[in-house]
Each structure stands twice: as C-alpha cells, then as structure tokens.
C-alpha cells in the first residue's frame, strides 16, 4: 500500500471518529412480543395481498377514463440513421384511429434530464423523444397511433410505412471494446481504485488465477409490462404510471414539457414488479404528448415486445479477475477490471467492481470499470446492477483460487476477512459475513462436499456443491419527507410518496410506524404511490426501508414534541421533555415511570383537536460515509448435471444472509427467494439476443427469452443472522437485491464440482457442458 493510500485511510478513520455518532434507533432494543405489543420482527401478512388476489388492485393500465384512446407504437427497424420517408395516410384512414403522431407533428419537447445528472432527474436516456428524423437504436419509437380501441391502434400501427437511410452503427461489442473509456464516475464512486502495484504483485505471486468472464445482456421481464394512463385537465397533467421513481419522474416531465412541477400529479399505487426497470422511458413522454395533441386521455400499455424494445435492461460485461495469492492463501493482488456496453446518452455503468472494493483484504488492488459506447437502447438498473454479475466473476475466481491452493472455499474467505474496509479504510458498521458461511455450511451439509470434481454420480446425473459470497451495499437515499396524521380515535396515517412494487414496503412501514408510535399495526395506514404526498425517493438500491424509516422517525419526533407541548399542565406528562418520554400503548409515557402516561386520544381531546399533523424531512444519510455499511451472505447450491445431455438442474439451494435486523420474516423470505430465483435465471438461461448485424433484439417474448419456470426452482432455504446494524434506522439493511448476488457463481462452482468443467460465460447452457 502506498504512503498516500495509508494516509488517506488513516484520515478517513479519524474523520469517522471525529463526527458525532447518532445513537442507535431505540426501536432496535425493543423486541416485539407477538400478540402483545410491537410488530416488527413478526410475519404480518402483506396488506395489499387480499386486494391483489381478488383482482381489486387497480394497475396503471386498468385506470378508467372517459373518451380514452389507446396507443400503439411503431418501432424503427434500423439501429442508426434517419427516417427517409414516413407515410401515415393508411394508418390515419384505418377504423377507429384518432391520430398518428410522429416527429413531424409531435409537440416540441426538451430532452429528459438524465438519471444521476441531478438528484431529481429520472430520464433513462437524455435523447430527445420523437423530435426529429434521426434514429439511435433499433426499436426506437418512430410513431404512436391513437385509436378508440387497443385492437384498432395495434392494427393501424402495422399500416404506418417507414423507410430509412441507414448509417454505420456500433453494434459489435468485441470490436467496440478497443474504444472503451472510463466513465466519469460509477454511481458517484471513482471508476478506478488502485492501491499499490497490483500487476507487479500478481506477477510475483506464487499462486494465481487470471481469468476473463463474460455475462450477456438481460431484459426486464416484470409480470406487469410498463404502462401509463394519462390525461390533461387544462394545464394540469395526471399520470397513472407504474414507476419506482414518482417525484423524479414528475420533475423530469415538468422539464420536458416546460410546465411547473406542481401541475403534474403522478399516481402509482401498485407496481407489478420493478427490479430497476420501472423508470422514465419514452412511453410516458409519448403518451403525454399524444394526449395533448389529441385532447383526450391516452393509455399506452406496452406489449411484451415493446418492453424489450424501449425499456432497457442489464448490459453485457467482459470482466477480468486476477488473484495473486501467497502460499497461506492471503492475497498479494486483487485485480477486477472490465468493460460494459453503454450509450453516450445514459449513465449506468453496471458497477461490477463494487463487491471487490469491500469484501476481501489484499495487499494491492486494481479495480477499474470501463464503458464502450454502442448504438443500442439505453441500458439500465436491474436487480443488483453490478453486484449480480460482478460477483459471478469474482466469486468464480475465488473458487478457482481455492482449488489451486487446495483449501476449502469457505476457509479461503476466512483467511481473507478484512479488519476494516479494504479500500476505503472505514470501520465496518456491522459485518457478520463469516457467520453466514458457518451457519449456512452447517445447515446445508457443506461437509458432505467432495472437493474432487466429478466424484458424485447418481445414474446419468453428476452432482456437485458450490458456494459463493453474496453482498450488497447499504444505501439510504438523500431527501424524502414523511407526514404523520394522528387522529383523536387513536389512529395514524403515515404518508410518503414511496413505492410498493410487491416487496412488502407498505406492510413493513405500517409495522415500523406502529411500533414507532406505540400503536397496534391495525391502527396505522401507510399511504404511498402518489406525488400529492410528501416527497419520496427512488425505490432503488434496496434503500426504501431505511429511507422511509428515517423520515418517519423525524416526523414522529416532531409529532411527539408537538404533543408534549399541547398536553399542557393538566397532563401527567406535564413538564416532561421529548427525551424523557416514549410512544407506547397508544400514547406517550415516561421511559422509567409507568404511571406518567397519557393516551393520544386524551391529549388530543383536551387540546380540542380532531387530529394532529407532523411532517419532517429525513436527515441526510451520513452513516454510510462514516462507516463501511454492507450486507453479506453465503449462497449454497447443489446442482445435478446430466452426463448425457449437459442439462443442469439446481436441486437444492440455501441462502444465508446478514442484512441487519429482519423486520418481517415472511416478506424477507420472499425477497431473498425471489432474488435467488432471478439469480438462477441469470446463471442458467437468461440472455437477450442482440443481433450484432442489426442491433435488433431477436427474442422479445417470454417464450424465447427464458426465465426460470416453476420446475427449474427447487425448494430454497433461507436463513439470516438477524443482527441489528446500530447505524441503520430500525437496525435493518435493505434486502431486495442481495438475493441475486453470488447465485451465478454458486451455480457455476457447483457445476464445476459436479463435472470438472468451468463455465466462465453466462448463461450455463448445456452446449457448454457437453
């Protein structure tokens, strides 16, 4: 390590000591007693569940509107160039058609502000939408047809005749790699981290692996395709969207259409799966523009094909992992570098080196992310962007190294366990990674693994076990505000424009708010999914739980202070400060003297109030700057590989996680399992077929784009440490994304153990094993 780096790390350490630490969330210490008080940590069923299974939850594509028109898109069939001719006459003459909008008659609009360019921005791409004849990717919308029915719109869309002048396009990733460059930043982090001379250390290391790994493009395949139902009401714009970034979409659309933000309202009470894909794409902009042109409401519900063509997915990667080890297994060098495809008009460099920045100790590091610009649909976030594919490379390489060293892969991780964050030098806030391995190994029966590949066979089936590290950062987004409305009958409504995409957000936040206010969970409603509510933040980076909790904590602090003030001199609480009281049993009470208590109802009625409202902003998320805050896990996999056909079937899986306190075991299990299932798809079958001659996606359908079916998914066992992180609100880390991380490598390592074949390029299809 260079002197400079040592100094930097020391400085970081000092800094973190200097800054005052916020005391742990008091709710961490309060254990719920099921049936009595407190509901965090118990398996409250999903509040939105009954409505969904009864078909009563209304999604964006189902919102009724008078004089509704239905939109259908026409996609470009070249990757780059210009529209040479455009004939809409036949489409306009078709039955039921209201209008055809193209770049010729679309309202003038500003390009959307790109995500990350401003904390308020949501644009998945900064390209202008349908403003001129230029084409930037194969699949770009060139026309939208509005008609009185969806069928009429779909039909008329086939009648729009377009010809193109094609221009040379950058479509071949292997060729484009030579043109790669470092992005300015990777989600605000530097694209390159270098400590010491890692290449020299690698060259001098007695044992090493130096391997290239590849992962393909993936497309979003949420059960609910993207959709928007929109209308103008004079100068006001109403959008029923399916989104995971409500206020960001509003701010960005205000810019696109040049109208004040407060004239736009976006509602999104139910989102049928987001996974990073439900952002601001062309369709919302086109729907709003077309509604303006038509003077009628518009519904633009994307077909499955349209999702593949205009809503981006995970980009492809080529990664190098080189590990230089000493005889004792410690690392002299950890190198993780690589390139992904991106476009000039988006900013999503797929942070695949992030795991290597925080997982293992090494004497030298070289971690570098590069991007190469291609003519394609803007790529975007998809469940654990970076970590999902980054752990495939890193954790397969770890397995390869363990074999060279002839040590058990779990033992190797023990030897590499760092005392502090290996690249930032920050202290870990809460790290129990080795426990996830130990607990998981015991439960999974890791000791039954034979390290010699190909040594277990049952009939045609070769059986193998594999393990890999899972990891995901703790994020809490800056911004966000919550409002609590406490009513005289002892109920509370907690509101924040956050997002419920099926994770259980509404349920868990109702639980957390109930415990925070000392109310039973049935007496608390959590309101979300509407820009009319106080500002929420993006539902991304597994951050919502912490972000909402921090805002609700702030609002409840304000509420309690206000209640004490209004309680007056006749209250048992008279003269008590906020620090002396706690919320419990439907009111406030002295922390130590149980007799000093007054119910909310009593306080409010004495003060002559029907309800009391408190709203507050969340404090800025300083905790993750002072500490290295990450979640960890160990993924255990058993595969059966058919010796005749090469077919791989996962027969057992266990995920063991360290994500702070688990707030609702039922919801958490579902999130972890869902992540693991998506990881099985990543490992074994998912691949967007991007034809490098035309830039066209050739499998835009769920028949040909394979995700796991039920029969591909074995029983998945999930366990966790449940150790609270004292720096996180509620002691909890987000859990939405970590489940997918490490799965690719766990499967690949199990396949190696079964067959002796290393598959270094995903997906692991049977041809790679024949």
């Amino acid at each position, binding site marked *: 390590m260079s002197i400079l780096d040592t100094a930097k790390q020391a400085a970081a350490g000092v800094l973190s000591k200097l800054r005052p630490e916020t005391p742990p969330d008091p709710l961490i210490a309060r254990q719920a007693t099921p049936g009595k008080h407190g509901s965090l940590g118990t398996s409250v069923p999903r509040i939105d569940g009954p409505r969904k299974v009864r078909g009563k939850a209304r999604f964006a594509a189902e919102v009724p509107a008078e004089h509704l028109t239905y939109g259908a898109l026409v996609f470009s069939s070249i990757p780059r160039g210009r529209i040479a001719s455009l004939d809409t006459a036949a489409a306009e003459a078709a039955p039921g058609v209201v209008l055809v909008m193209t770049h010729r008659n679309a309202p003038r609009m500003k390009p959307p502000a790109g995500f990350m360019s401003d904390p308020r921005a949501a644009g998945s791409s900064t390209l202008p939408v349908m403003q001129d004849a230029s084409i930037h990717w194969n699949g770009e919308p060139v026309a939208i047809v509005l008609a009185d029915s969806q069928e009429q719109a779909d039909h008329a869309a086939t009648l729009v005749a377009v010809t193109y002048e094609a221009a040379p396009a950058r479509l071949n990733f292997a060729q484009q790699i030579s043109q790669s460059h470092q992005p300015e930043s990777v989600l605000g982090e530097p694209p390159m981290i270098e400590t010491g001379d890692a290449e020299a250390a690698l060259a001098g290391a007695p044992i090493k692996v130096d391997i290239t790994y590849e992962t393909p493009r993936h497309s979003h395949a949420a059960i609910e395709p993207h959709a928007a139902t929109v209308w103008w009401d004079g100068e006001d714009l109403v959008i029923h969207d399916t989104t995971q970034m409500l206020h960001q979409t509003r701010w960005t659309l205000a810019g696109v259409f040049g109208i004040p933000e407060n004239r736009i309202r976006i509602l999104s009470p139910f989102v049928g799966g987001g996974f990073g894909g439900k952002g601001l794409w062309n369709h919302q902009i086109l729907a709003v523009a077309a509604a303006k042109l038509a003077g009628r409401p518009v519904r633009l519900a994307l077909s499955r094909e349209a999702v593949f063509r205009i809503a981006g997915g995970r980009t492809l990667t080529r990664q190098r992992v080189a590990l230089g080890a000493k005889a004792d297994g410690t690392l002299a060098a950890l190198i993780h570098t690589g390139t992904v495809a991106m476009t000039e008009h988006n900013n999503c460099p797929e942070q695949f080196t992030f795991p290597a920045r925080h997982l293992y100790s090494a004497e030298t590091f070289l971690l570098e992310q590069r991007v190469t610009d291609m003519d394609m649909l803007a790529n975007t976030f998809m469940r654990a962007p970076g970590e999902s594919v980054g752990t495939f490379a890193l954790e397969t390489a770890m397995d390869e190294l363990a074999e060279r060293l002839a040590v058990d892969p779990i033992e190797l991780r023990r030897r590499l366990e760092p005392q502090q964050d290996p690249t930032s030098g920050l202290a870990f806030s809460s790290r129990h990674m080795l426990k996830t391995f130990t607990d998981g190994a015991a439960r999974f029966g890791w000791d039954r693994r034979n390290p010699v590949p190909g040594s277990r066979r049952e009939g045609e089936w070769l059986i193998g076990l594999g393990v890999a590290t899972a990891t995901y950062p703790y994020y809490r987004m800056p911004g966000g505000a919550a409002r609590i409305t406490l009513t005289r009958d002892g109920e509370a409504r907690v509101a924040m424009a956050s997002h419920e995409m099926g994770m259980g957000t509404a349920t868990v936040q109702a639980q957390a708010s109930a415990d925070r206010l000392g109310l039973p969970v049935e007496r608390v409603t959590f309101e979300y999914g509407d820009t009319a509510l106080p500002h929420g933040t993006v539902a991304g980076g597994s951050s919502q739980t912490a972000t909402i909790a921090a805002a609700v904590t702030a609002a409840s602090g304000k509420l309690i202070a206000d209640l004490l003030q209004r309680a007056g001199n006749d209250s048992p609480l008279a003269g008590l400060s906020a620090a002396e009281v706690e919320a419990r049993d439907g009111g406030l009470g002295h922390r130590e003297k149980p007799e000093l208590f007054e119910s909310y109802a009593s306080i409010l009625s004495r003060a002559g109030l029907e309800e009391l409202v408190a709203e507050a902003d969340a404090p800025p998320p300083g905790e993750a700057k002072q500490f290295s805050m990450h979640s960890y896990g160990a993924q255990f996999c058993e595969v059966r590989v058919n010796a005749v056909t090469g077919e791989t079937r996962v027969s057992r899986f266990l995920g063991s996680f360290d994500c702070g306190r688990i707030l609702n075991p039922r919801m958490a299990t579902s999130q972890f399992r869902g992540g693991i299932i998506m990881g099985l798809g990543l490992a074994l079958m998912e691949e967007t077929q991007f*034809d490098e001659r035309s830039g066209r996606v050739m499998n835009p359908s769920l028949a040909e784009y394979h995700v796991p079916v039920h029969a591909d998914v074995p029983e998945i066992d999930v366990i966790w440490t449940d150790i609270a992180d004292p720096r996180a609100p509620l002691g909890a880390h987000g859990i939405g994304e970590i489940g997918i991380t490490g799965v690719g490598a766990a499967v690949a390592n199990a396949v190696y153990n079964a067959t002796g074949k290393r598959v270094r390029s995903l997906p692991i299809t049977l041809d790679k094993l024949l």
Partner: protein
Amino acid sequence: MTPFDYARAGDTAAAVRMGSVAGARYLGGGTNLVDLMRENIEQPASLVDVTGLGSAIEERADGTVWIGAAARNTAIAGHAAIRRRYPALSRAILAGASGQIRNMATLGGNLLQRTRCTYFYDDAARCNKREPGSGCDAIDGFNRIHAILGASVACVATHPSDMCVALAALDAVVHLEGSAGARTLPFDALHRLPGGRPDRDTELQPGELVTGIELPSLAFAARSTYRKVRDRSSYAFALVSVAAALDVGGDGTVRDVRIALGGVAHKPWRAHIAEQSLRGQPATEASFRAAAAAELADAAPLTHNAFKPELARRTIVAVLSGLTETPMKEMAP
C-alpha cells in the same frame, strides 16, 4: 392484428367449402395462429373454426387407433389406450408447451404449427419462409434452435412440435379432406424439407383440412418413449428430441425399431438410416452408437448449434439403451 371474418364450421364439408376460399385459414385452439396474427406474420382474411369437428379418440377393431383432428392435446396425452399402447406419443405431448396451452391446442393445429425461428417471427428481418426470395437472416444470425439435417441455403428453420416427432416414429397416417376429395398421407410425407420453397411447410393443398390421424396397430410401440432436451425444465422447445420404439428378440437382437428426431430439421426427422442399420443387430450400446453416428453423418451445423449432432447421438443412444432396460410396467407415463 388485421381485421378478419370468423365462422364456425358445423361439419367437414362446410369447413372445406369455407376453408377453400382465398385468404381463409382453419382455426384450432389458436395458440399458434392467433400469436402469429398478433405479430402481423399471418393476416388471414377469414378464420374457419374447426374445433367443433371430430375430436374422438377410438380404438378400432383392426387394432388401429383413430384421433380426430379437433382432439385437444391434453385429451390425447391422457387417453388410456394411448398411454398404454403408444407411450412415446403421450410423453411427447406432455413434454410440450404448458398445461394451459395443451388444453387449448388441437391435433390438427399441432401438426400445422409453424417454426419458432425468431427471424420468421420478426417482420423487420429477412425470411424466405415468410417472404419468399427475401433472404434468410438466421443462417448467419442466432441459430441455436435451427436445423442440422436437410436444411437448404434458403432456410434452416426447424419444425417445433414434440407430438409430431412421436407420430413420425409411430408411422401414423394423416387423413385429409379437400375440395378434390379425401386422401391420406403417411406421416413422414406430410411435412417437407425446405429446398427452394421454405414457404411451404407441408404437402397440403390450399384449403385441405386435416380430419384426423390413424395410428397403426404397432404392438411393440408399447415399448416406446420420448426424450426432450431443452434449455429449461419445462416450457421450452426441444433443442433435440428423440422418439423411439424398440422390439428386441429373445436372442437379444433388434427385431424392429422406430426412431424420429425433433429439433434438428424442417420436419420431424424419421431416422431411417439408423433404423436400417439396427435391424438384426445386437441391442447393445455399441450398435446404438453406430446407428446414431450413421444417422448424423451428414449433419451440417451452423454457428450456434454445433453441439446438436453430438447431443442427438448421445440422446439416441441413451433412449435406446433405456428402452432395452426399462421394465414394461414403467413404460406408460
């Protein structure tokens, strides 16, 4: 989707009359045709719904079994006589699509379903099957699911059906009814190789209706099976599949054998060469291997399906070996 007329046929004669009009197409369960209409790949002017025509499954006195063209895939796969006498057929159907699709899909529609070549499915791509003379983007494109046997420079598409592979192996006879009257075709003569006319999948004349198939009384088909190799456990088309029936004499030699392959050609591929080389040979792995090698000798793989000849050889050997070893009581699905 382009607007179209719809009529339900009350009997075969009416169906043929309506189906012989230009632009008319027969409609079975619609699980393939309607998809293609939605993708704008097919634009029939009228649909003649034939799901109300014969759907009976009958064992006849002469030992044959009759299956009406409107019989649903699920009904065929679950029929006791099919399960007992032709397990390969039952297994092949159950290996295909999903429960919901099989409940809708008819025998006639399954036979006439079109290729899953993704360039055929995308009207922005060149495809000689969809638009004769336009070219083929699959030959140098994504061709993992494409043909290794009997393809042409015009077309490398495969026939996607599982059921048809079993029917090809079982020597089924296809019954047709057209404006020129009724006729029959041996199953192997129903589907075509692409040659220079990949737009023609089958030997059917325009307007000709499939009324049913007849399974011959093939006693040793009771020892038959179907194995499908695919990219996920279910709900994926075959990369390679094998239907086979095997009759081994008391002396351990192959008395008779039927083998057909799926996922390798423009039609369900009856493995005549392998069958011929096996008859009279000892039913051993060595013979099976030699037969498989002979059948695949002319295989011409493309960029992404180079694995298929080896996969096909291995699967043939495994299926035949399994048939020699499996106890009779485990044969039926």
